[in-house]
């Protein structure tokens, strides 16, 4: 299990991705799944900075990676605002382009890229996001 703490800034994203990719490769994920995990974590961290913290430089993001029961488990923790994942609508890309509005694509991608994602919002321990990817070699 490895844990690193990153400043909640968009410039942390490449370092977070490197940390995650390293863990995914070491866990034995294939190339396609490494990218899937990289993308899901990037989307999650971008959302933490933009929505949980409301902007850059407000708080940190704790990233933990561990391999358990043939799964790569990634845990992200922040101390920002909680939210209701069920209230975030899925993007509707059947609409005419002029009607498209940003929002929801990141969470949608996280759900599609990972085998399981689970949010927990606690009063003393902050927000915890657990994402799991099965290791298929």
């Amino acid at each position: 299990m490895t844990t690193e703490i990153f400043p909640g800034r968009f410039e942390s994203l490449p370092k977070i991705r490197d940390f995650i990719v390293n863990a995914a490769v070491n866990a034995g994920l294939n190339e396609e799944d490494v990218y899937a995990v990289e993308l899901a974590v990037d989307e999650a961290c971008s959302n933490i900075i933009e929505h949980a913290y409301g902007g850059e430089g407000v708080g940190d993001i704790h990233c933990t990676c561990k391999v358990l029961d043939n799964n790569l488990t990634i845990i992200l923790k922040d101390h920002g605002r909680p939210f209701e994942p069920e209230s975030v609508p899925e993007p509707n890309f059947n609409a005419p382009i002029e009607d498209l509005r940003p929002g929801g694509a990141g969470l949608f991608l996280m759900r599609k890229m990972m085998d399981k994602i689970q949010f927990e919002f606690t009063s003393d321990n902050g927000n915890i996001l657990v994402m799991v990817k099965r290791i298929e070699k």
Partner: protein
Amino acid sequence: MEITRTEFKRCDLVKAKGRIDSYTAPNLEEILNSITANGKFKIVFDMSEIDFMSSKGWWVLIETQKTCKKYNRGELVLVGIQDRIRESLFLVGMGSYFKIYEDLPTAIGSF
């Protein structure tokens, strides 16, 4: 991320190398906005050397496409998308808003 811009007779070519995420997408947005602000709406975006793209990057392209397609004055086309990036584009459903070309001459010649 490195971004270059080349003006052709009938379109502008923008090429980005590296990763497009919430950190680098504003740079791409600035370049694309500067092109449309100058009244140019026919743009080819060369993605052949982009190896990572998050939804923030896709939204920048969508917003540019909205601007370009207004009043039928032009459009933004994409070229050389790597397979796994193309997969996430279509998975989210944004793929249908762009013409995608495999090679640059065909993309530029489409205008």
